[in-house]
């Protein structure tokens, strides 16, 4: 049997109005081989992180702790062949314990926390490992008209070399996971985006989540092939 290679047809996230408005409806086009290398952005190392930016539980080192449950999130970033993604930049943002972002465009009116910005940066080490602390975020009502919540999640944007990934870490056992539009589209693969709980007896957080990140696609390994 021969199959003709086709680009993906993207799916619209159920009950997500923005997804309906913005998801391309035509099948993605295939990139001709002669043009393929030009589709591999290579992001240089950027010296942008500041001291303390890996601790989102405080606005600045020495400042008071934010409300809620302090957690650690850590893991290893690698490509699908298991090669570590070294010195990659992780940009991290999450809502406070009540489900509110400090972003100037979040007009939800949900309670703010004067000790929480929800913004952080960290770079991976020589083995691709990263660690940051934050406050366990709250779920929030995304569609009041149908009562749909966005489950607790942490946004992570990763860039380093030819690896580029924007994703979200979800939390295990949350009932709202089942109705999230993007989580629904992931199907069984959703489990890969759920952090795994570990104990943290000797550090000043309540517990941790292990979140290993595998950057997929051909771009991540393009210059290693």
């Amino acid at each position: 049997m021969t199959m003709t290679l086709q680009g993906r047809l993207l799916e619209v996230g159920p009950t997500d109005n923005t997804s309906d408005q913005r998801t391309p409806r035509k099948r993605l086009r295939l990139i001709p081989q002669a043009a393929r290398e030009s589709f591999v952005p290579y992001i240089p190392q950027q010296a942008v992180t500041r001291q303390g930016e890996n601790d989102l539980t405080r606005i600045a080192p020495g400042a008071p702790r934010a409300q809620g449950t302090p957690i650690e999130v850590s893991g290893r970033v690698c490509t699908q062949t298991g090669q570590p993604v070294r010195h990659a930049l992780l940009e991290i943002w999450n809502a406070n314990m009540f489900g509110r972002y400090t972003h100037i465009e979040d007009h939800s009116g949900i309670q703010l926390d004067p000790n929480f910005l929800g913004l952080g940066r960290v770079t991976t080490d020589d083995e691709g490992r990263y660690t940051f602390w934050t406050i366990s975020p709250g779920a929030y009502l995304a569609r009041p008209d149908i009562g749909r919540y966005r489950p607790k999640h942490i946004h992570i944007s990763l860039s380093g070399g030819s690896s580029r990934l924007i994703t979200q870490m979800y939390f295990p056992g949350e009932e709202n996971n089942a109705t999230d539009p993007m989580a629904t589209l992931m199907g069984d693969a959703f489990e890969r985006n759920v952090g795994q709980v570990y104990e943290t007896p000797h550090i000043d957080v309540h517990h941790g989540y292990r979140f290993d990140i595998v950057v997929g696609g051909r771009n991540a390994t393009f210059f290693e092939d």
Partner: protein
Amino acid sequence: MSANDKQNMLFPTNEDTVGPYFPIYFRDERLEDLTSIHPGLIVAPEGKHIILRGRVLDRHGDLANGVVMEFWQANAKGVYRTPAHADNPDLDPWFNGYGRLRSKAGEYSFRTIFPGSSKGRAPNITLTIFSDGINRVVTQVFFEDAEGNDTDSLLSSLSEEDKPKLIARHDGRTADGAEVYLLDIIMAGDQETPFFDDLVS
């Protein structure tokens, strides 16, 4: 890569939507104007200054607010700063070729240098879009009347109807000497911008 290697490959983490609140805190003005490596320096990349400008529209023709746009291009001599060209003497020490901006309303303006043609390709800028409601999508932007548009491998793969959707229209020159190019990106609908699949192809 052998079939055996493919079987041993790890499952990728799913991409997810960037959501509406990509932090403005992460903005870096140096990535929004590639004609200068840093404000206040006398050193700067070679090349003709251009501004690529336009709107990102949804399938109803409304502005797509909060989009994050990333740009990737060759320098004025057509060389990309990748490991494949690490020793190329035509690398520009003041040009990385990677840009990023977040548009609050859905309108964008990116200042850079006109990319040189690389490996027989027409001058182009690779555009990655992150937005609420979708995962990463990618395409390439070309320039009106640029040499090589009629033989470019990517443009040639498109229908006559689709080609103009990726060619930015020249719209004069600014007071400070930058050539302006205009292109609207239409995320979905009848006039949808062609997007490409860098996972399958």
